[in-house]
């Protein structure tokens, strides 16, 4: 008889231990097998060969040899996988896996099958996804030889369903626990309230009756109360203390004291022979009820991310090999051509190749109007096709799509905390041990200077302090509101990068708006056509378009777009010439046509016309382009970078919020003033070089202003970074603009006002929560300790403490949920009304 000690690794649960026992038990001569999970070692008694044992252990997936842990290491591609296109993923349903390390051994087993490129197992829905070229039956055999069962499944959506069911099950379990706790506690409490005796008379029937009640209460503590005790114990071993610690200590103390009274009444003075079983049971019930309500309410706080996750399409109709096939969206690769029919979602980011349609992008940008799309336009995953059929080429898939990055950003921001929450963080980190100290101290004070009987008063004071203290309310106050606030902002197409921005954005007094692309469209458009000598506008525009058809200048684009909108088609010209900074010329119908600026035509000896009207155009910030046939000007076209349709309205909203609105631009003063008049800003900073924008922002800050800078995120990056809060104004899908704390996905300036309104509402909500949580704890704990007793004779019952505690965290979560109904526009309108009335 020999003894072998073999190192194991990755075994973390009894399921793994069983697997190891089974694997080693099959080795001849292995008689007694002991698995020590703590030491990660297995001890085998018997005459088995050590090599055979090691081999069996290695096959089980728990061997400690380095070769057994390749799951996380980058594996060289197996030869079979080289050069092969991605085969279809295979989903396997796995049975018998109970813990994280089972996952690893299954992944290792699957990874060893030739042709498997990647294998990952999901313990939640007991499924494994295998990509590569392996045959399903080989995969199943590999899993089975590792000691588990496997079968092929087809429905990847089951995971979601099962997860929801699991959450529901948790909720129902909490409700059941509530039922047990209150079912035992309430009748006992009623008995006490109705004048029944809650004390133990030794040697009478009451002792036996209370013993029975005590055992029933123990069942409540051991079953519905089990999670608290297990949690408290585990935390204690880690030198850690949490809410479970407080509840376990509180209910445990009450029960232990009562049991001492029942079993050994002699130890306790007669007046103190009171039992508190009802408190233990009621507290377990009430806290479980609180947790159940919290689960419900918290589900709603993450609704924004769930809504974004739901935008993901499940399948895509891909045109491959001359046919069309619906494939899971995960298998779409960049370069695939995808067809999307009316009413369907765009599956991945791409560029339209054929067809035209309108897309509802509101879920991403908050912009309610559908956007027209045609060949060359980009489309974003998650948006809804409202019109015709489109065929687009996939450009970004998987985690690279704008939607995936938005989800990532929102999730990240939801985990960050504005500085206002830091105090609560510091407090909650030391909260529980402090409460324990207060509980012991309170008990000692009652013992030394309290009234008779000291023991029961000590017990009540300590238990009540432990139970009433609520670290949850404190810990939840900030994150819950941030979560709802950031999610709310995302609903309006506003991406907040940091929780900190929520706090800063709520407290701004100056907004600096970049002109081009922020207040204006950022691309010139035709504003007016003037014809001389009895010509018509359409004639002038047709000629201008014929001239510009070969040009790629932004001004030319403006003319071409306008001609197209009016249904005018350009005519073919000859001898086309583009003169940089001057204009273009060409020949048509035997005449020389020129289109360009005034100075150039003058130099060419052209007779000018319409000069006064052209000067008017300049005053409205439009650039006049003169059209000449041979040596006479026959028309003038005004081209301007128009202000966005809702810019003036949005700026009015900002000013109504009491903000000083400043426009910053490189334009000359005159044209800057013209735009400023239309937009209705307070001040203009004109002729500012791009690199000086950051300096201007800094100058404002030095004058004591708290400045928001709104710009395009690329040219304005330094200014955005310098500002207290940088707003990058995006165009739909540019989500990851690093220089800005806040990204507005729609081009509308309303986003700035919306973001500020949401930030203010969120900050207000956090303040309410923090105030509530601090006041609750700093009033509740002293009252529970009996501070009011010397003055009023009040001593809180532990049951009331339990009710107050579970109510307090539910209140915090519910208050945060109120934010979900916040409407930024409405809030502004209300301020606007208010200012009108006053």
């Amino acid at each position: 008889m020999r003894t072998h000690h073999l190192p194991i690794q990755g075994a973390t649960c009894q399921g793994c231990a069983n697997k190891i026992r089974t694997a080693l038990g099959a080795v001849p001569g292995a008689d007694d097998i002991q698995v020590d999970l703590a030491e990660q070692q297995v001890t085998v008694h018997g005459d088995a060969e050590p090599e055979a044992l090691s081999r069996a252990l290695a096959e089980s997936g728990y061997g400690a040899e380095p070769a057994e842990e390749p799951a996380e290491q980058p594996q060289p591609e197996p030869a079979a996988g080289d050069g092969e296109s991605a085969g279809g993923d295979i989903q396997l349903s796995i049975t018998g896996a109970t813990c994280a390390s089972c996952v690893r051994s299954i992944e290792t087993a699957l990874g060893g099958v030739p042709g498997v490129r990647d294998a990952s197992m999901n313990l939640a829905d007991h499924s494994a996804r295998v990509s590569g070229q392996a045959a399903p039956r080989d995969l199943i055999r590999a899993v089975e030889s590792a000691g588990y069962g496997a079968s092929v499944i087809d429905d990847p959506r089951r995971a979601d369903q099962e997860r929801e069911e699991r959450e529901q099950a948790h909720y129902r379990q909490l409700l059941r626990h509530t039922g047990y706790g209150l079912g035992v506690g309430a009748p006992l409490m009623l008995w006490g309230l109705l004048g029944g005796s809650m004390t133990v008379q030794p040697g009478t029937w009451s002792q036996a009756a209370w013993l029975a009640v005590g055992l029933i209460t123990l069942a409540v503590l051991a079953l519905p109360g089990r999670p608290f005790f297990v949690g408290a114990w585990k935390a204690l071993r880690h030198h850690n203390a949490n809410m479970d610690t407080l509840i376990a200590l509180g209910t445990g103390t009450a029960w232990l004291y009562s049991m001492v009274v029942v079993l050994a009444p002699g130890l306790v003075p007669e007046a103190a022979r009171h039992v508190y079983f009802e408190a233990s049971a009621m507290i377990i019930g009430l806290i479980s009820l609180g947790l159940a309500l919290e689960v419900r309410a918290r589900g709603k706080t993450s609704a924004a991310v769930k809504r974004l996750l739901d935008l993901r399409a499940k399948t895509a109709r891909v045109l491959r090999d001359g046919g069309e096939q619906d494939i899971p969206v995960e298998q779409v690769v960049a370069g695939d051509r995808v067809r999307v029919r009316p009413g369907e979602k765009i599956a991945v980011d791409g560029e339209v190749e054929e067809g035209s349609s309108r897309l509802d992008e509101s879920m991403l940008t908050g912009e309610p109007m559908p956007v027209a799309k045609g060949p060359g336009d980009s489309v974003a995953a998650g948006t809804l096709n409202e019109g015709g059929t489109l065929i687009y080429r996939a450009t970004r898939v998987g985690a690279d799509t704008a939607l995936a990055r938005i989800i990532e950003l929102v999730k990240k921001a939801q985990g960050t905390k504005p500085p206002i929450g830091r105090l609560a963080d510091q407090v909650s980190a030391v909260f529980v041990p402090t409460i324990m100290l207060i509980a012991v101290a309170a008990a000692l004070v009652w013992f030394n200077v309290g009234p008779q009987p000291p023991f029961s008063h000590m017990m009540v004071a300590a238990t009540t302090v432990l139970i009433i203290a609520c670290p949850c309310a404190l810990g939840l106050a900030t994150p819950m509101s941030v979560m709802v606030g950031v999610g709310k902002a995302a609903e309006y197409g506003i991406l907040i990068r940091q929780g900190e921005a929520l706090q800063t954005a709520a407290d701004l007094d100056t907004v600096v708006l970049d002109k081009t692309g922020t207040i204006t469209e950022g691309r010139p458009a035709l504003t007016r056509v003037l014809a001389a000598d009895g010509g018509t506008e359409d004639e002038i525009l047709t000629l201008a378009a014929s001239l510009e058809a070969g040009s790629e200048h932004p001004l030319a684009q403006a003319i071409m777009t306008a001609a197209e909108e009016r249904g005018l088609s350009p005519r073919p010209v000859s001898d086309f010439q583009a003169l940089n900074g001057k204009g273009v010329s060409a020949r048509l119908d035997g005449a020389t046509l020129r289109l360009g600026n005034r100075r150039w035509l003058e130099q060419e000896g052209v007779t000018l016309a319409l000069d006064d009207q052209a000067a008017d155009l300049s005053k409205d910030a439009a650039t006049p382009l003169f059209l000449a046939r041979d040596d006479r000007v026959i028309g003038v076209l005004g081209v301007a970078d128009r202000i966005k349709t809702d810019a003036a309205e949005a700026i009015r909203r900002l000013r109504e919020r009491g903000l000083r609105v400043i426009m910053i631009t490189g334009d000359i003063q005159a044209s800057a003033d013209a735009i400023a008049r239309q937009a209705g800003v307070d001040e203009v900073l004109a002729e500012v070089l791009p690199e000086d924008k950051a300096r201007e922002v800094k100058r404002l800050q030095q004058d004591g202003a708290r400045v928001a800078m709104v710009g395009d995120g690329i040219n304005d990056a330094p200014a955005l970074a310098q500002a207290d809060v940088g707003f990058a104004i995006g165009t739909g899908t540019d989500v990851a603009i690093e220089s800005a704390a806040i990204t507005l996905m729609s081009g509308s300036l309303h986003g700035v006002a919306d973001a500020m309104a949401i930030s203010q509402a969120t900050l207000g909500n956090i303040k309410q929560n923090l105030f509530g949580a601090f006041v609750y704890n700093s009033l509740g704990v002293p009252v529970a300790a009996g501070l009011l007793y010397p003055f009023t004779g009040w001593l809180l019952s532990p049951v009331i403490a339990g009710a107050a505690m579970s109510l307090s965290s539910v209140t915090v979560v519910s208050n945060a949920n109120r934010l979900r109904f916040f409407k930024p526009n409405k809030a502004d309108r209300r301020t606007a009304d208010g200012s009108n009335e006053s």
Partner: protein
Amino acid sequence: MIWLINLSGLALMALIVWWFWLSGAGKARRATHGAVDIIVDDGVYEPAVIESNAGEPLSLRFERRDASPCAEQVVFHGLDVSEYLPVGETTTVTLTPEQPGTYRFTCQMNMYQGKLIVH
């Protein structure tokens, strides 16, 4: 008797202070091959102390068994990383801490507490 109870009360308080604040926390687990499995259950991360080296990519595989919403999110303070942990699933958090130091990782409300020590 009176002295005994008072003394044991004070001793208990001293024990609380010592255990939760003064004595060292749980044993550290060094990241092996840049990956660590962490079980999220019953109010604690297991293991709760992770060691790693600066500049090395680290995969932390969080297996959330606790269905209570407290465990829903893990936040790495000072690293700008947070992740949702769906119940019953293993969620891999990948990060590369560049600066040596001690980073706390907690649930949203600081009840679950862990430490990432970067050398």
